[in-house]
């Protein structure tokens, strides 16, 4: 059984001193999905679980000082989580050799299965130190990846604006979207800068637009599409749509699929003579 295999792998990693801590999924109290567990002893691996409720992107924990203090980690990732890890690597936020990455072949997560999983192109992580399991349920055609966005873009600009006004009006700036994001690692987020204030801290419509649009742009060509922000939002704002529109634009214009090539230069920090410029008006 895959869960046993995962536990065995982790037990060995801790026993032979390869890592100090395993960042994995553990059982959550009834009614919740799973939660991150931080295991430091070989006996502790019995807490690890692997199931279709392993929803969180645990890569977000690599930015937490409390977790870093535990020593060299092994981290359990799905293919989408791994893309975030690769972006961190590209952006020099982590030394790949200092993290042991355990990839899990993934049939999709969530009950019901999440939108991103239905059109997942990856399923099996590619750059891990070890990959466990195999895919038993291939995702629907990856061509369906932009369907939700395409449907949304059929609306007129006025309708789309009305939609975002309605949706973002609910935001109370709890910043769950930012905190669960592995790529929101700024030591001080622009929205927390108050000398002077750059982005209005108020959860007003203006402040909310400023926040979400800024975040989407900052994640352009970086967002791994793990949808952690969308899952985390307590008021049900479909942030996935914002991220997807950025992802589609960078993919179509710059052939950039973030986190799929550890050797690639980050798009924002890179210039190619072939880059299109007709969109600059």
């Amino acid at each position, binding site marked *: 059984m895959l869960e046993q295999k995962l536990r065995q792998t982790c037990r060995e990693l801790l026993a032979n001193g390869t890592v100090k801590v395993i960042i994995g999924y553990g059982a959550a*109290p009834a009614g919740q999905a799973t*939660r*991150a567990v*931080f295991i430091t002893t070989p006996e502790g691996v019995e807490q690890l679980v692997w199931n279709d409720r392993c929803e969180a992107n645990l890569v977000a924990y690599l930015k937490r*000082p*409390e977790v870093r203090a535990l020593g060299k980690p092994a981290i359990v990732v799905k293919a989408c989580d791994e893309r975030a890890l690769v972006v961190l690597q590209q952006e020099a936020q982590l030394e790949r050799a200092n993290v042991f990455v355990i990839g899990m072949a993934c049939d999709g997560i969530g009950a019901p299965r999440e939108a991103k999983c239905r059109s997942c192109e990856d399923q099996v992580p590619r750059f891990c130190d070890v990959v466990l399991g195999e895919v038993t349920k291939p995702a629907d055609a990856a061509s369906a990846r932009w369907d939700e966005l395409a449907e949304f873009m059929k609306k007129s600009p006025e309708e789309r604006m009305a939609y975002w006004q309605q949706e973002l009006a*609910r935001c109370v700036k709890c910043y769950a979207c930012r905190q669960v994001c592995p790529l929101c690692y700024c030591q001080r987020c622009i929205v927390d800068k108050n000398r002077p204030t750059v982005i209005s801290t108020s959860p007003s419509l203006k402040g909310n637009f400023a926040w979400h649009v800024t975040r989407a742009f900052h994640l352009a060509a970086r967002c791994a599409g793990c949808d*952690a922000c969308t899952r985390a939002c307590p008021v049900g704002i479909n942030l996935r749509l914002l991220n997807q529109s950025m992802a589609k634009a960078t993919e179509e214009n710059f052939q950039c699929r973030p986190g799929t090539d550890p050797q690639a230069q980050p798009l924002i920090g890179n210039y190619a003579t072939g880059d299109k410029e007709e969109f600059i008006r």
Partner: protein
Amino acid sequence: MSQTISLAGIRQLIGQWLGQGKRVAGPIRVNADTILYQNLTSAEALLLDGCVHPGNSIKEFVMPPHEKLYEYVVKGRDVELRNQEAFPPERLILGGRPCDAAALPILDHIFNWDFVDAAYNQRRQALTIVSLACTRQDDACFCTSVGLAPDAVQGSDALLVPLGNDEYEVRCQTPKGEALFAGKCTPSDRQGSVPAGPAKQFDAKQVEALITSQFEAPVWREQALACLGCGACAYGCPTCHCFDIVDEGHAGGGIRARNWDACQFPLFTLHASGHNPRQGQASRQRQRVYHKFHIYPEKFKEYLCTGCGNCVRRCPAGLGLLSVLTAIQQAGAAAPAAKGEEAKQP
């Protein structure tokens, strides 16, 4: 003898209020997965079943996430203040959960114990709250652990108790509630009853005693590791009430606003000097538990928690007060001598 009202009667009541230009709020479905307390634009939008607890709390109607306090205009060496806020319209909340309503008397204490907060009190006085007794619960619910129940009446002007078939027993608690339902109910001999609430999950008294003696216990660090430090718990909590005052505008003027703030953010305690007395998530999470189960009870003789479970439901990391308190109780039972332990500051 009891008083009853049908769902159709309730919707009629809402229609009347809306027709008079008053506000009515209640649980509505905002999308396939989300039900929130929001202002109703039609009586039909009200959703009395469909979820155990809406994703937010009714504190938003007495303490909005963003509240303009006044406008200011700089005129030479003077500043002119313009209070633009008219007296808030009368508002009815229908279908509030008893655990949300019970938070209102708590907030009343907070906003009146030294500084009498006019903005809060005006909204509060304009509010009539009709709660709906809970007939079901989920794994996040823990009202019974903090002394409440599925049919608690604290803070409610009236309580609706489901009788089945879209009929409700109306239990008026205050003159406001009586005025609201006067002439709207049918006398009946049916008495509503609700199932017992969730089993007690922890002993609040014991937890209160433990957290004072376990200030440095490792359990705080262990519990906080998975916390990612957002404000989803605090902002969904009916009793969390911390705020920040900000000025927004330009050199010539602007607004002074009150925005929600949360103790889980590092910025909450960051000093101008750059020093932060609450370093690390463990001390921030501990603060939240302390405030709810020690600091506030010490002053006001009640818990700053109604067991609504929203912190559990909303936590993107699968945490929430319930598991933290349970863990503290377990740690306390396992190591009663931890008082003098020279553990490191979390």
